[in-house]
């Protein structure tokens, strides 16, 4: 008999989902959170989920938005890329959220993008990425390549006198694109072909012996050499360890990384990393009132005095602030109105100064370069004069140098070709 009950139970519960009545709650504004809480990306993304929750809580303390309370709806796409599309659809159609904060990896963003465009959702994407995209439904608050990679290379070139370049990355789209842009940029700046070495390794690569030895050989040929690393996550520590073991110090061959932040360094033995560099728009060590305040709140919210803050958190913070401002300006959470109201919004950076939302849905932000210290924090050694505007389409790629994004009338297009004066391809 048990089985029959089981079967009926399952049938009923499935039916319940199928025919569930979606409650239409008008008294709250729903904020969707689309970050992986399990799987490989959970390490990074859980922090961002908590950041959004903290911001929601704070906003509610201030009395909510448009007189309504904010309500966070958290789903778990489990680091599984197709699930991002599925969960995105769930947020937009079942939960009817007004905005989504989410995604970390490029592929997860690419996965959810068609859903956002189909259902006219609104998403804030808070991580540095490869660019080459501008969607009406997404605001990119992380750095585009020209806000991270190019300033870093400028610093190495101008301040450290680097002449030979190793572009080392994990084999996926962000490093590929970034390195392509950098290669074009360096060549445009007169660096010879043989002074650039490009290397790709798989995810989680741990045996760096040969590559580090190649870098060592490459760097011993007389010219000052630096490594521009787009190596992802897990592969970093063994890489730096091997550098240390083969006797390469940060003074000999500095490594500037775009994916190593405070979160990644927390709790690690930083000995082999000290002196190497990272380029971000935010460092926890930057002293400003806003930052001190933010760090204190974060530690209180997580109940952990050792928790660190990082760049994608700041990007989430800025995105959230701007969204609330835009909603207030538009007087509604309607996606189209908020999208238009977003453009031109300004919000204080945690590192001082104001961030500005451009017509291409990317931010103007300052760029900082920091040296890794023994305590896992960064010491700012260089920063750009003023703000750098995020560039959706790189000027250094042949396919995209004629493209630009402008979401205001009359162009209203994410990939407008300035030569042919057409908005290529877009169906929306």
């Amino acid at each position: 008999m048990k089985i029959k009950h089981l079967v009926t139970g399952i049938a009923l519960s499935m039916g319940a989902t199928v025919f569930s009545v979606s409650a239409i709650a008008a008294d709250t504004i729903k904020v969707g959170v689309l970050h992986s809480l399990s799987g490989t990306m959970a390490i990074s993304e859980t922090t961002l989920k908590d950041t959004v929750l903290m911001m929601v809580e704070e906003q509610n303390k201030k009395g909510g938005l448009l007189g309504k309370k904010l309500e966070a709806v958290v789903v778990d796409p489990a680091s599984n890329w197709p699930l991002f599309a599925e969960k995105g659809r769930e947020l937009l159609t079942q939960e009817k959220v007004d905005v989504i904060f989410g995604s970390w990896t490029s592929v997860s963003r690419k996965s959810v993008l068609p859903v956002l465009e189909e259902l006219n959702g609104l998403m804030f994407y808070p991580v540095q990425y490869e660019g080459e995209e501008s969607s009406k439904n997404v605001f990119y608050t992380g750095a585009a390549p020209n806000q991270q990679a190019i300033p870093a290379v400028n610093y190495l070139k101008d301040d450290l006198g680097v002449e030979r370049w190793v572009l080392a990355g994990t084999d996926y789209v962000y490093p590929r694109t970034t390195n392509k842009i950098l290669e074009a940029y360096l060549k445009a700046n007169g660096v010879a072909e043989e002074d650039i070495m490009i290397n790709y390794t798989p995810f989680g690569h741990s045996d760096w012996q040969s590559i580090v030895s190649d870098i060592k050989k490459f760097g011993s040929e007389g010219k000052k050499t630096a490594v521009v690393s787009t190596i992802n996550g897990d592969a970093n520590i063994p890489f730096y360890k091997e550098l240390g073991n083969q006797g390469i110090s940060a003074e000999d061959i500095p490594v500037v990384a775009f994916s190593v932040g405070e979160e990644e360094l927390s709790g690690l033995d930083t000995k082999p990393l000290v002196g190497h560099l990272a380029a971000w728009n935010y460092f926890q060590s930057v002293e400003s009132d806003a930052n001190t305040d933010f760090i204190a709140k974060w530690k209180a919210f997580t109940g952990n005095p050792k928790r660190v803050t990082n760049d994608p958190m700041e990007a989430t913070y800025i995105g959230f602030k701007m969204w609330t401002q835009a909603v207030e300006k538009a007087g509604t959470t309607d996606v189209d109105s908020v999208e238009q109201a977003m453009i031109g919004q300004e919000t204080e950076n945690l590192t001082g100064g104001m961030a500005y939302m451009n017509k291409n849905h990317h931010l103007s932000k300052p760029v900082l370069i920091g040296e890794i210290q023994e305590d896992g924090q960064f010491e700012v050694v260089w920063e750009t004069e003023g703000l750098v505007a995020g560039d959706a389409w790189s000027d250094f790629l042949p396919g995209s140098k004629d493209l630009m994004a402008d979401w205001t009338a009359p162009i209203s297009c994410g990939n407008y070709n300035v030569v042919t004066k057409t908005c290529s391809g877009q169906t929306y």
Partner: protein
Amino acid sequence: MAIGGFLFSLLVSTSTLAEPPSTAQQPLLMQLTEVKLSKALPVLQQLETSTGADMMVLFKTMLAGKLYYVKEDRSLIVVSKEAGETRYSDLFSAEPRHDLSKKQVKKIKVNNKLRGYLRESIARMQLHHTDPEVRVEAVRSLFSDLDKPTIELIRTARLDEQSRSVQAVMDVALALYRVKHAEDATERLEGVNALQGSLEPEVRNQLTLLVANDPARSVRKAAQKGLDKIAQQAEMYGFINQLFFGLSLGSVLLLAAIGLAITFGVMGVINMAHGEMIMLGAYTTYVVQLLLPEMIEYSLWISVPLAFLVSGLAGVLLERLVIRHLHGRPLETLLATFGISLILQQLVRTVFSPLNRQVATPEWMSGSIEINPLLSLTLNRLYIIAFALLVFMLLLLVLKKTSLGLNVRAVSQNRNMAKAMGIRTDRVDAMTFGLGSGIAGIAGVALSQLTNVGPNLGQAYIIDSFMVVVFGGVGNLWGTLVAAFTLGIANKFLEPVTGAVLASILVLVFIILFIQKRPKGLFPQKGRAAE
């Protein structure tokens, strides 16, 4: 042969009492606490040339990132952490300052530019160090930046130098300078001839420049000859280097696979949770270091037996609770142990957080042995190769010489007969499984020195381990050894040609094809399978 970890040799406890700074130095020191990071270099340069107290201790402390100042009076102090406790002491007198606390001091920051300068400056000061090896390193670190004052320093030092090896590097330095700056072609030619035989990268770069740019033909010819010689040497050492990389990768594969060679090869039990046994061993190392923070240097020696116990026990439990009930059903065993591996991974994630945990490398395993400027062998890899071979030998001994080994072999050959002979087969099974898992735990200790200690550690090695065991021939420990090193070396020789990703794909595809050609592996066990 000099220890490559130059930095560390520099840092060995700051030297004894120094005299207090002179009046000329005082304001400079004060300035050091005030200037911005970007303006600190000139201050340091003035300090180096100033007379009075020896600035070596200041520079060394600063390079190590231990230089702080007291906010109140801007006096310089050293802050060091020993046995988890922060200690404060005066920079010049080395007297302890118990009155200070964390809030009263501030770090004097250093960046790469300063570190570079500090290192060179220390090298200049160390030209007269008592240890000839330090002197050699000092000269070598000056190679890249030979200016007139430095050359003068070296030239003077050369006059009193007694040690042959130091003389040799100093001569190289002088010749380098001569080649670069001498107006007269014959003088340059002499320099080039003096450089012959040196493998230093700077020498090669200088020769390359000469070949391209030198106006005198004779110099160009001599330089070309020198370059050819270096290239020949470089090729040979490059080969040795690759061989070493291959052996090192092979030893890692051997460590990861050898436990599996027992559970899979000898017992015929497929254990998908083998990787997690490795992971447990690595986490044991982490916990040992966490509990005994002042004993990092010895932590590995404690971890090895402990990891063996932890993983071994886990293995025995796994055998008793799950695998025993699935005897003779290999496919089901595979699935159940895979389930166990998922549970163990998640357990570690819950207990230790999903973040990678860092296991510190003891000093004696850091750095490398530099055979010559073209060939240096990293110490941690060397130790791990030796360790892998040691574990392999011990395991062979256990299987050949102990009663457990005898029982294991008996049971694996004919279970029923062994049972009839009074061998408690179920106990032997559990012990064998424990042994295999324990060795996986030991492998975990070794791997913690090379890679990230995280919940996915085991997964990264499981497929490779199976490949090694299957390739070598199941049930043959020597086969495992040969297979591990073959695959390691093949991988490393392919890598420069194809890139890391394609190399591992090619090796995988090769094994897949190989197994289909020879299903029993490299060293098959012939015989009539008992039906």
